[in-house]
């Protein structure tokens, strides 16, 4: 069984004592109080360059993704936020003309090395996409997909883990009677939480979220934001968002990207209240982007 099984959605709520008031950065956000350098890093990115064919999209990105924290990646459209996190799980390898150069250290190994076991890397670094993308199968089989791929489980264990993942994704109550219905029969917001359940079922260490709320309505967005805050006790989360309020609400650290470079990276409270760079300030205050 999974380490901490949460049975009731109310318990999930109670765990999330750090839910900040909306639309402003919580004062007690751990990012400020803590010693950044003292926190363990889950992923260390050093001098990451990225190319679409001959066109360079990322320039010398260097960033530390802290363990069990939410790191938000913000910036105007086309600044390279998605490109940046798509390098972490090497999903860009699907496209022949895309190349990454530099170091992405994860658990001591360079993710960009040809020696890396891509399948295990992707189990350990899960990804949620902008558009909810349930597989063309039942709700149950969607969540079981990664479990079946990466673990040998008997039937009872499999269904326990599926249930657990759905509970931890705060969607169990909505789908417990629909486990054998097709995943794409759910609403958009439910589909997105189903995709989160599918990713966390495989027991990853990191969750990459690429604008997970941009295709769903505000109520569903609120649910996913709450979910992110509960999930960070167990996972390291990197959240790409073009919604600055969202970054302020859920993240501990924020990286501001502009034209393929990381302009500023630091505690979310500092980025949103007292940015060091002029470009960051102009973006935060809505003067451009």
């Amino acid at each position, binding site marked *: 069984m999974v380490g901490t099984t949460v049975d009731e959605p109310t318990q999930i709520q109670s765990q999330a004592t750090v839910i900040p008031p909306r639309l402003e950065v919580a004062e007690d956000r751990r990012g400020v109080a803590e010693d950044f350098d003292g926190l363990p890093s889950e992923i260390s990115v050093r001098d990451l360059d990225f190319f679409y064919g001959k066109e360079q999209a990322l320039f010398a990105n260097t960033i530390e993704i802290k363990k069990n924290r939410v790191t938000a990646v913000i910036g105007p459209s086309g600044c390279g936020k998605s490109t940046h996190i798509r390098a972490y*799980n090497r999903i860009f390898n699907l496209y022949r003309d895309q190349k990454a150069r530099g170091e992405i250290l994860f658990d001591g190994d360079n993710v960009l090395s040809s020696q890396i076991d891509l399948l*295990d890397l*992707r*189990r350990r670094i899960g*990804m949620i996409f902008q558009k909810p993308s349930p597989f063309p199968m039942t709700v149950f089989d969607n969540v079981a997909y990664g479990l079946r791929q990466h673990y040998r489980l008997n039937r009872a264990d499999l269904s326990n883990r599926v249930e657990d993942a759905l509970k931890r994704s705060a969607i169990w109550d909505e789908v417990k009677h629909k486990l054998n219905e097709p995943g794409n029969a759910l609403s958009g917001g439910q589909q997105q939480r189903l995709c989160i359940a599918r990713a966390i079922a495989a027991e990853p260490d990191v969750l990459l979220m690429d604008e997970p709320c941009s295709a769903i309505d505000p109520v569903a967005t609120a649910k996913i934001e709450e979910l992110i805050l509960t999930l960070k006790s167990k996972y390291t989360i990197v959240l790409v968002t073009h919604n600055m309020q969202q970054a302020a609400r859920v993240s501990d650290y924020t990286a501001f990207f502009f034209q393929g470079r990381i302009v500023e990276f630091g505690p979310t409270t500092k980025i949103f209240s007292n940015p060091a760079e002029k470009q960051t300030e102009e973006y935060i205050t809505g003067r451009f982007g």
Partner: protein
Amino acid sequence: MSTVVDVRRVPPRRRSIARRKATDLVIKTFSWIGAWFGIAVMAFIVYEVVRRGAGALNVAFFTQATPQDVTSNAGGFANAIVGTLAITAVAALIAIPMGFLGGVYLAEFGRNGHLATAVRMIANVVMGVPSIIVGVFAFAIIVKPFQHYSGFAGSVALAFIMLPVMARTTEDILNLVPNELRESGLAMGAPRWKVTLGVICKAARGGLITGATLAIVRVAGETAPLLFTALSSPYWMTGLFGPGGFFGGPVANLTKTIYDFSGSPYPHWQQLAWGGALVIIIAVLGMNILVRLLFQRGKQW
């Protein structure tokens, strides 16, 4: 910027409403005529074949072999129906798996590579090759070396026609599956082949089955490729091997038999040919309509 652009307000263009309505009417009328012309031709063919062929469809038609005695009114097309089913089924067994895999290669792996581009172009060319030439090709590679006609040679000819159709259809349908689904599958740590078969092809299954069925329907009515290969026979197919077998000799089939019988001077034989034509039309139309009804939802991607 030194050039000054003139952006003064100009009055919007005024059109005569009567003229606009007239233009609209003319376009609508021509479209309507075009659409109904196609439907009318189709309806006329079906009507005429039903009118002349319905009378031939009786128990004997579906149970007896083609007649050899011109004076009797006995005989049917059963041997030809069986032969066509066998030839088409074997063609499908050869071409559908190969075409499917080829299409998967084009859509998922080859994409814009040199090999895929070449294969795609060749497939397009082969689709345009006249079917009689495909028949001659099958004659050269199967009939000539084995020194006899055979149902199998007919299947090879039909498979050769189906192969590019199946490959291109598969490619087109897989291309409709959004890339997010590919990425989601790979992001779960599943290998590429598993994502392709278990997620991508599953998402496209309705379209793939429709495509395969339409590829079969496409060749079921072919005559020319069979002229040099399966030829025709007044007898039942007698198993697989030997002079009367699928691999061993000429095999009766609907299209070639219709061709022979429609040209005969005997009214009963001509009647049988109309019956054969009706059977093919019903089968082809029926399959078309059936898959479209069953798998309309398959086009959701």
